[in-house]
């Protein structure tokens, strides 16, 4: 090995000392698969109950009157009574394709997070942002091994109380852009924790299977919302994420 080769070897070994360790990531386990099924079952059960009720009680399904010319990329979502929406049509622009499911899983999301379950909702306050379809993550939780059971049994109902938004379906198609607020409730509820600026690869769970998206985390858009913190009883960081499917 000549000098340049030796220097490269030494340099790479040296810098690799700054690499993260397995202690900084959660290790996937087979439990996730079972809980994934649980989650799907819960989502299906909720949809089976809520959507018919929505029909009966006048649920407003965002974008339902604007059928997409494209094949939907997802076909299930949560609905909520129309009366709960703080704003109406101008804040819910029709989207071109697909209905984003009420639940997304994020993997990985950073330190000590592997599987995060996020509820995406339309909200009156947020979905007119920048004139583009907007969804809001109602809930986002670090799902360490010990948390997965909780995450799997999560339903939107318990978290609606006290929060400034309600779950509702969002409609996104390939190439659409949405603004997503990730409400990050980290392990231990430490303040100031959340997504680091940059690009994160997310995997959204759709009925047809997972799909990848990239989320751009813009540090300038990071805000803290004490209302959510109060509602969930811990410190939260709300991070605004541009989300685009590919």
């Amino acid at each position, binding site marked *: 090995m000549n000098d*340049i*080769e030796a*220097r*490269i*070897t*030494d*340099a*790479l*070994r*040296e*810098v*690799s000392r*700054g*690499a*993260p*360790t*397995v202690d*900084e*990531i959660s*290790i*996937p*386990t*087979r439990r996730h*698969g079972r809980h994934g099924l649980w989650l799907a079952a819960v989502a299906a059960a909720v949809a089976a109950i809520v959507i018919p009720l929505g029909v009966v009680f006048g649920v407003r399904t965002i974008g339902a009157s604007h059928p997409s010319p494209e094949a939907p990329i997802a076909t299930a979502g949560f609905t909520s009574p129309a009366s709960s929406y703080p704003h109406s049509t101008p804040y819910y622009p029709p989207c071109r394709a697909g209905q984003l499911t009420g639940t997304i899983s994020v*993997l*990985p999301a*950073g*330190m000590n997070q*592997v599987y995060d379950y996020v509820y995406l909702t339309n909200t009156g306050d947020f979905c007119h942002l920048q004139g583009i379809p907007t969804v809001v993550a109602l809930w986002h939780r670090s799902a360490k091994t010990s948390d997965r059971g909780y995450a799997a049994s999560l339903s939107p109902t318990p978290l609606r109380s006290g929060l400034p938004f309600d779950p509702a379906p969002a409609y996104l198609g390939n190439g659409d852009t949405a603004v997503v607020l990730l409400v990050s409730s980290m392990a231990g509820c430490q303040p100031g924790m959340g997504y*680091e600026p*940059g*690009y*994160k*690869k997310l995997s959204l769970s759709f009925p047809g299977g997972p799909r990848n998206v*990239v989320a751009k985390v813009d540090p300038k858009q990071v805000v803290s919302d004490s209302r959510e913190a109060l509602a969930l009883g811990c410190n939260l960081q709300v991070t605004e994420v541009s989300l685009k499917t*590919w």
Partner: protein
Amino acid sequence: MVASFEAFVRERGDDLLGLAYVLTGQRTDAQDVVQEALTRALERWERVSRTEDPYAYLRRMVVNANISRWRGTLRREVPRPEIDDGGAVDDHAEAYALWRACLDLPRDQSTAIVLRYYEGLSYAEIAELVGCAEATARSRVSRALAELRTELEAR
């Protein structure tokens, strides 16, 4: 044969993260790449664990995941990320400068360099891993070395 997935991760997880970090230049990207590889490996662990070298299997997944990530980044015309050095540049300036120079090489060359000089693979192993001819792997390393040598001499 590795006893379990968890045992493998405990035993070799840091090695994978080190490789991913050296390849990506970002701690968070390294975590993403390794997590993705581990998640996929877990789905087929019974088969993976029966291979002669499960680490080699995961290493390939990490390299491929990084290449896929990079290609996706190119499509979106996202600027190349800055090296996340954890503030260690001052202490090891030359090492980090050389690392940065490696990452600034064309991706196939920087991958070959990392596999050759960090993982210690032979040209044949590099070729097999990235799916090219051995001569191509050798050529990539040679061109990368020439570039890096020029870079060092210019300082």
